[in-house]
């Protein structure tokens, strides 16, 4: 599938996955890829109420070479248009203020916030804070659909991780059941409409090719389909060790003649290191391959793949490498056919 077609599938891409598997990285890489083909993108990171630090926002900014932390206002990470990438974070308390303004409670909104009203609202109406954030995303999506000036073509939502994501995306459904009438019900209905329409909104799952993350991915996929009624677009297998040709025999006695034949003069200790590093690599590659196969059989979704990066920090150079890889992976995309 070509890149433009991939991003034409849906206006909002919700990225979620087990914590630590690269959700934020994948959000940034997807945004960068969309920008490469001339689309204007906004990455929205969702923050819980009362957050004091946004490690995820710092990571996203660093990926694009910026030292910054995201706030309510959009920050430009890549210039444009066309191909502009902007980013922002959405918090329930600012979403609540906006919502109250819209419903004629402007004067009270600041007072409510200062007295910690969000906590009470969260207590009284569980799911409300999450739904307010989704309501804001829906608003951005409507602006995009209407082609409003300054609106993005694609919205990448860097959502909460795994289990929290299920609760997050379930919130409007829960509110529809609980709230009999009124603005909350109307808002919840609109958000559900967006979530259930694959042309407006789809979910991208992120995992690493390891046992526990794969287990959780399969579970979360099921829960999202059952409880949030969202369409699952694809699963991104992140941090896969790149393939490497290794000799069949990786013991020192087997490698010694090969070293000699290659004209490499290695001390025994060096050869032993070469051997055990090779054994580790092979073991990792095989274990990962097994997990990828298991993922394919337990979760019949198209798989995209990103390579492991031999570093501890990701910046613009790595962003370029990962975007290339994602582009190649999308090009190999095999949509799952109907049986």
């Amino acid at each position: 599938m070509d890149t433009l077609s991939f991003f034409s599938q849906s206006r909002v891409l919700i990225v979620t996955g087990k914590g630590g598997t690269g959700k934020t990285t994948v959000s940034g890489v997807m945004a960068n890829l969309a920008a490469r083909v001339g689309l204007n993108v906004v990455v929205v990171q969702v923050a819980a109420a009362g957050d004091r630090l946004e490690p995820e926002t710092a990571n996203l900014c660093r990926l694009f070479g910026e030292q910054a932390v995201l706030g309510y206002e959009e920050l430009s990470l890549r210039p444009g248009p066309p191909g502009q990438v902007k980013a922002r974070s959405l918090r329930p308390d600012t979403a609540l203020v906006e919502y109250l303004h819209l419903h004629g409670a402007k004067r009270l909104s600041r007072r409510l916030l200062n007295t910690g009203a969000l906590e009470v609202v969260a207590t009284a109406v569980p799911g409300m804070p999450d739904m307010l954030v989704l309501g804001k995303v829906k608003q951005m999506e409507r602006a995009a659909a209407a082609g409003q000036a300054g609106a993005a073509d694609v919205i990448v939502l860097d959502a909460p991780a795994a289990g929290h994501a299920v609760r997050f995306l379930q919130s409007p459904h829960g509110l529809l059941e609980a709230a009999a009438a009124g603005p909350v019900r109307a808002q919840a209905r609109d958000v559900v409409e967006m979530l259930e329409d694959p042309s407006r909104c789809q979910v991208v799952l992120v995992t690493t090719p390891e046992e526990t993350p794969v287990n959780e991915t399969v579970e979360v996929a099921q829960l999202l389909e059952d409880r949030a009624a969202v369409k699952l677009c694809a699963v991104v297998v992140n941090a896969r060790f790149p393939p490497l040709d290794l000799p069949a025999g990786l013991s020192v006695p087997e490698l010694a003649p090969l070293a000699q034949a290659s004209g490499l003069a290695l001390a025994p200790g060096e050869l032993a290191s070469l051997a055990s590093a090779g054994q580790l690599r092979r073991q990792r590659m095989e274990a990962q391959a097994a997990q990828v196969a298991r993922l394919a059989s337990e979760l019949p979704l198209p798989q995209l793949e990103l390579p492991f990066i031999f570093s501890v920090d990701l910046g613009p150079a790595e962003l370029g490498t990962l975007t290339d890889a994602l582009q190649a992976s999308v090009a190999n995309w095999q949509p799952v056919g109907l049986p």
Partner: protein
Amino acid sequence: MSDLVTSSAKPLVAICVGPGGVGKTTVSAALALSAAQVGKRACVVTIDPARRLADALGTGQLGNEPRLVSPGAGQGWPGELWALMLDAQSTFDHLVARYATSGAQAQAILANPVYRNISAALSGTQEYMAVEKLFELVESASFDLVVVDTPPARHALDFMEAPRHLLRLLDNRVFRLLMTPTRAGLRAVEVGANVMLRALSRVAGGQVVADTVQFFTEFEGMEEGFRARAKRADELLRSPTTSFVLVCSPRRDTVDEALYLVAQLSREGLEVETVVANRCYPRYGSLPLEVVPGTARGPLAGLVANMAQLAVLSSKQDEQLARVREAMPKAALYQVPFLTGEVADLEALQKVASYLS
């Protein structure tokens, strides 16, 4: 770690904090196991263990109470390892039963249609219930060491804040609007009489606000019990026999988050004494300069490239670990390698434990 497992102060509490996805649950269980290995009675409170680890610990079948872990064939340890998987809802149900002034009141609350949702929100979801369970285990005086795996929250400090969060909610000015003080305790107000509540009704819908007020009506009289308990739980978290173990991995982002946590704890006068850096790729030594990656011909090219890649990785990991050492010079630092295979049985857990002594 040797201090934690050999200390005679009883009961000792070890709270494992750290960013998500670094293997906190595994390290928590391994820590409890190493205490059992030196003859202690240790209990690990897990929050969300991986399925196979849960099965290995026997917590798959478990309710909210500690269960003795039986060693596998050919294994054994002089002490005892106990484990439980936290069930936040049932913990709160027990608290209601405990602090209700009558059986009828407890029943009324548990039967309230919004109870389930509100109790989840009121207790700060899993965090407060984990502290509650810890408190219960310490009070029972059955264990020499209790290890708590904190929930995979966005901010592990939420765990520390959990009792105060509940107290703050009870003190919350808008919350107070829902209750007025009476001689017995608190009584719920009339929604219509109050402008704030009307505004809340506009936001949340009238019925939900009414249901909430009803819930608090039924909650009347229990508030003091909860408040006292939350205060004692908070004191436990800050007591000298409570120790903090920071779990991280040698990546820039997890070290950033870990150091932030340490700074926050330090601001509260709490010190992290132990750091476990998990999932470290090994060092393999280096190749002589003549063997330049990419120029090695023939069948060894892949091996040479591999070694060069791993060398870059491990030197960057070392940089991150140096940051941790620099920020926490007095802490004991343990490195656990990236193990081949999932830690899904007691044998693998023992392997992890072996790196923690």
